[in-house]
Each structure stands twice: as C-alpha cells, then as structure tokens.
C-alpha cells in the first residue's frame, strides 16, 4: 500500500467513524442519561432516511427536507417519550427491551404500509455533487466530505450544549440524581422529554444526511442499531466524548480490517469490543460521564 492510497484509506476511516458517531450520539444520550435501553433507535435512523426520501421528492430540495425532517423528528420524539418512554424509567431493562422491540416492528410496518418495501435512492444536491480527484484512478465525492463536516459540527454543538449551558448542566444533574433535581424545583419530566426528542432528532438527522450517500431500504435501521450499541459500549455509556473516540476507532478497524484481514473483517469490531471490555469493563470514558 503506497502513501496516497494509505491516506485515502485514513480519510475513509474518519468519514465512516464520524457518521457512526452521529447515529450513536443520540443512543448514548438516551441510553446513558435516561437509562433506557432503546432498541428502536435504529428505527429512528430508518425513519429519518425515508423522511428524507419522501420530503426531498415532495419539496425538490434535500436541505429543505432535512430542516423539515428535523422539526418533525423533534415533535415525534417528544410525543413518543410522553406516550411510551416516560413509563419506562423505573422499570427494569427487560420491559424496556420488550417495548422498544415492539416499536421496531410497528415502525417497520408503518414504513411498509405508507412508503412500501422498495429500495430507494435520494439524489445528492447539485451544489455538492462534484468529486475531488485523488490519485490517478480515484476521486472523492464532496458530499461525503460534507457529511463529515456536518458530523463534526453536531459533535461540537452537542459538547457545548452539555458542558457549557444551563440546560446541559440540568441534564447532567438529572442523569446523576433524578429525585434531587426534582426537589430543586426543576421540571425533570420536561427535561427528559427534551433529551429524548434530541436523541431521536440526532438519529433521524443521521439517516437524512446519510440517505443520498447510501440507499434507503427496509431493515436499514436494524443494521445500524447493532454497531451503534458497540460504539456506546466501547465509548462508555453516556459519554459523548467516548462515543466519538469509539466511533473513530471502529472506523479505522473496519476500514483497515477489510483491506488487510478480509477474511476476518466481519468480526474485528466485535473482537475490539471484547478486548476493551476485558481491559475496561466500563468502556473507555466511563468515569467522567457525559
């Protein structure tokens, strides 16, 4: 492998890692801060991608579709928390798994009934459809770079929100002691509803922004769900920084694994998870949660 090819592979790794982070960040919020095992997280990603497909063909513009879609996702997440998830906090994980698994089936069926079971594509906006030539044979789609930038922006905003704002402070306090925060006169129920809506919006946003670079197909959410849990577990439950590091790590392992150890590339990520859990059972960034 010569240097230019190596550098392109590094770029591939970072790009894949950042996208993984974007999907997993919502999961780490809901799972880490609210303590709910949300198997339906992948469905939000799937719903996001289908929303991008439907809205962009209606409005003719992907960015309008994404803006509309994020608003819809926040509203959807807000209602969903109110109707279902707010009953789950004091219950054990098994009941959470049961409900959220049921939601996966419901969302897939709704998708099947409304949009159908076809595979769809979303076209890349004209302003971002060019490619940068890299090396002699290859070029790199600008849209992929755009995804990476968008992921970095979201990561930064999320970090600032949790670390530097009053809302972030309340969220972190609520994560460590719900009852204490409530007794201080903060409406914790409302707060968690907001966090949940944010988590749903992050997953849906990831689905929407990835849709043009990927394809939109039934079952796409379940595929992404598993790798998201790996990201969250490796990074340390509830740690956004951990999720970012873990996602990039997986990006590198997956990319270079496919090149150097093609026969084992399917298991390398899980091997990584096993090794990290033996070394640090709490994940990489557990101590300084959030």
């Amino acid at each position, binding site marked *: 492998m010569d240097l230019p090819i190596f550098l392109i592979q590094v770029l591939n790794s970072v790009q894949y890692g950042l996208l993984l982070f974007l999907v997993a960040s919502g999961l780490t919020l809901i799972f880490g801060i609210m303590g709910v095992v949300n198997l339906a997280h992948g469905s939000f990603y799937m719903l996001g991608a289908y929303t991008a497909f439907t809205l962009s063909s209606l409005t003719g513009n992907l960015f309008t579709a994404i803006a509309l879609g994020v608003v819809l996702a926040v509203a959807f997440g807000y209602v969903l928390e109110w109707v279902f998830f707010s009953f789950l906090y004091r219950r054990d994980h098994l009941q959470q798994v049961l409900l959220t698994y049921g939601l996966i089936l419901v969302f897939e069926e709704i998708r099947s009934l409304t949009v159908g079971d076809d595979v769809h*594509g979303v076209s890349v906006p004209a302003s971002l459809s060019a490619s940068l030539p890299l090396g002699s*044979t290859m070029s790199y789609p600008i849209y992929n770079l755009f995804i990476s930038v968008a992921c970095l922006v979201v990561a930064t905003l999320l970090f600032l929100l949790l670390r530097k704002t009053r809302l972030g402070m309340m969220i972190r306090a609520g994560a460590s002691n719900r009852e204490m925060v409530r007794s201080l006169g903060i409406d914790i129920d409302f707060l968690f509803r907001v966090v949940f809506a944010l988590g749903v919006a992050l997953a849906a946003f990831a689905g929407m922004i990835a849709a043009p670079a990927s394809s939109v197909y039934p079952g796409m959410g379940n595929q992404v769900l598993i790798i998201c849990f790996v990201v969250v577990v490796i990074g340390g439950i509830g740690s956004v920084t951990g999720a970012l590091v873990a996602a990039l790590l997986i990006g590198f392992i997956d990319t270079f694994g496919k090149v150097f150890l093609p026969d084992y590339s399917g298991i390398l990520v899980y091997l990584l998870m096993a090794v990290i859990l033996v070394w640090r059972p709490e994940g990489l960034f557990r101590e300084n949660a959030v």
Partner: protein
Amino acid sequence: MAGIDHGQQRRRIVQALGAASALGALGAAAPAFAQSTKLKVGFMLPYTGTYAALGRAIENGFKLYVNEQGGKLGGREIEYFTVDDESEPAKAADNVNKLIKRDNVDVIVGTVHSGVQMAIVKAARDNNTLLIIPNAGVDEATGPLCAPNIFRVSFSNSQPGLAMGIVAALRGYKTAVTITWKYAAGEQSIGGFKETFEKGGGKVLKELYVPFPNVEFQALLTEIASIKPTCTYAFFAGGGAVKFVKDYAAAGLKDKVPLLGAGFLTDGTLDAQGGAADGLLTTLHYADNLTTPRNTAFRLAYAKAYSSKADVYAVQGYDSAQLLGIGLRAVGGDIGQRPLLIRAMAAAEIDSPRGKITLSPSHNVVQDFYLRKVENGENKSIGLAAKSLADPGRGCTMG
C-alpha cells in the same frame, strides 16, 4: 443468510396485492369434499418481509398459467395451499412440514431465499415430495443435493457469472477484480465468473469480500483503485446493490474500470440508482425489452390479470406451472405415476416468456443469458451473452 434471489422489491400497486390475497383466500376456502380429486399445490413463499413482492409475483405467475389452461393442469383441478416462509431459515423446517405433513400436498413450489431453500430441499429429499424451485439460486439444490424429484426453473447462482465471464473475455478485458458479500450466493456467482473468464484468457487479480450485509464499500473501492484492473465484476442485490453502484460511480471508478455484474445488480433498483447505473452491463435470463410475441403476450395477460407489470419472478412462477403441466399431461393427471411424471418433466421443452428453456441432467434450467445494458432506467438486452447455458451441476450424481 439471504440468497441471491435477493432480488428486489418490485413496484407493485395496491390492487395487485388485493387480487393476490383474494385468490389465495379462494384457494384456501375450496370445499372439502372435492379434495380427493384436486391436485394439491403448496406454495412455500415469502408473503411478508423484504421479499414479499417476489413471493406474490411468483404465485401470480403460477396461477396465471393455470387459469390460462382453464384452471386445470393435465385435466386435474388445482387446490392451493400457502405457507408464508418469511425468508426465515430458522423456521423453514417447520414451515415446510406444514405443507408436507399437515396439508399433504402433491407438489411444493418454493422459494425465494437460498437459506430457506436448503431446508425445503432437505425435506423434499427425505419425504420424496415433488419440488419446483421458482427462484432461489443456491448451487447445491441442483448440485450435491440434487434428486429426481427436485427441479429448478429459475437459475443457479453460478449461471449469470458464467455468462458474464464469457462476455468479459470476449470484450478483451485482461484482468479483473471481483467483489461481493461473503456468503454462498456471492461466492458461487464469483466462482462462475472466474471459471469462464480465466478459461477465455483473463485473470482475476483479487477477490474482494464484504461481510454480509455490510454496505461500507469505501475501503474496498480504494483497493480496486490501487489494483487498477481492466474490469470489476460485482454481485450485490437490493439495498446493497443500490449503494455499491452509487459508490462506485461517486468514487470516479465507473469511467476508468468498467463495472460488470450479475443481473441482480441493476434489477428492481434502477430508480434508486439513477444516473450512477447508466451504461452498466449485466447478465441475466430476462430483460425489460424482450419483444418476442411470447413475452409480449405474457406481459399483456399478466398486466390484465393483476394490474401490475410482470417481472422476472412472475416469469419464473409462470414457468413453474408450465413445467408441472407438462409432467401432468404425460401421466394424464395421475401424480401417482411418479417415474413417468419425472421423466416427462426432465425432458420438458418449455416455451417460456424468456425464450425456450430445457433442463440439465441435474434438473437445473438450461437457458439463454442476455447481455443487458442500462439505458433510460431499463435493463435493455443488447444481445445474447451465452446460448443455452447450463450449470455444470458439480457434485450431482444423477443423469
């Protein structure tokens, strides 16, 4: 793990679904007293999940032929039984036993998914039940696991690859890289391509694999760019095919290293692939623009009966019924005369909408493969890739 058969979700309109389920209901509600005289056909097909549309197309195609014959095959009226296999290999053994043990069917028609197919093939061998495979391409069914009572009218996984290898060598491509998911259907397709391509003087430089059903191709596309072969042969289907074709074009490889594929790469996925698929060459036993009178008549009849466009799966369902019809006519509808029935089916010459087809000694379909080019959102045949191409049926001890 899913098979090749993976074909594709086909656009289908609501009326068609309604018509299909209504037909299914009628079949199930047949009066009990007539059962002794009716021939029992059991459909084991996916009616839910990703391949639901394929299952319905196969059933529609089958029933279309039966209805054209006045609802009878070989003078026998048909009673239908259906089991939804959900494309779920874990439930396959139980599901096939519902048809064999509970419903006591005379013949099974199924299925789409290769993993489920393996269970059906095993059950058909154990119980000596007559089986017609309307889609799943898993090589073993007409290879090491072949049996006199097992027939396939669709394709074997190797076949489109074998056809494309011939084309690639004839076009003067010297080197190739192959890429697919690491699972049986993909490996068998690559095996077919490699066999004929290298026989024709080409050389496969590297076989690249992605874990199934992973769709992160960027690392391997970079590999292809660094190896610089004269062509790439790919086997993907469904969502993976859409993403692969788009990624391949976005990586700027399409114009430098021509992409060749088994037909599934561009079948039922063209709307989603858009311009990225333009000009791609694939091989399959069917194309969107076959204008033979036989195909035109078939498509017209299908559209009239189900208000939806016929596709390759409908053709395969239709031919399953034709094959059964030929067998039953030879024995005057008496399915008990098994040796005579099987001899007639094995020797069948079927006038399929795709062209004339026959069967190989291992009971896999022998057929022409079309070389197809993607133009204006259609897979247009631009000639024959291979005439009367047979799967070698390795491991089969019949015939």
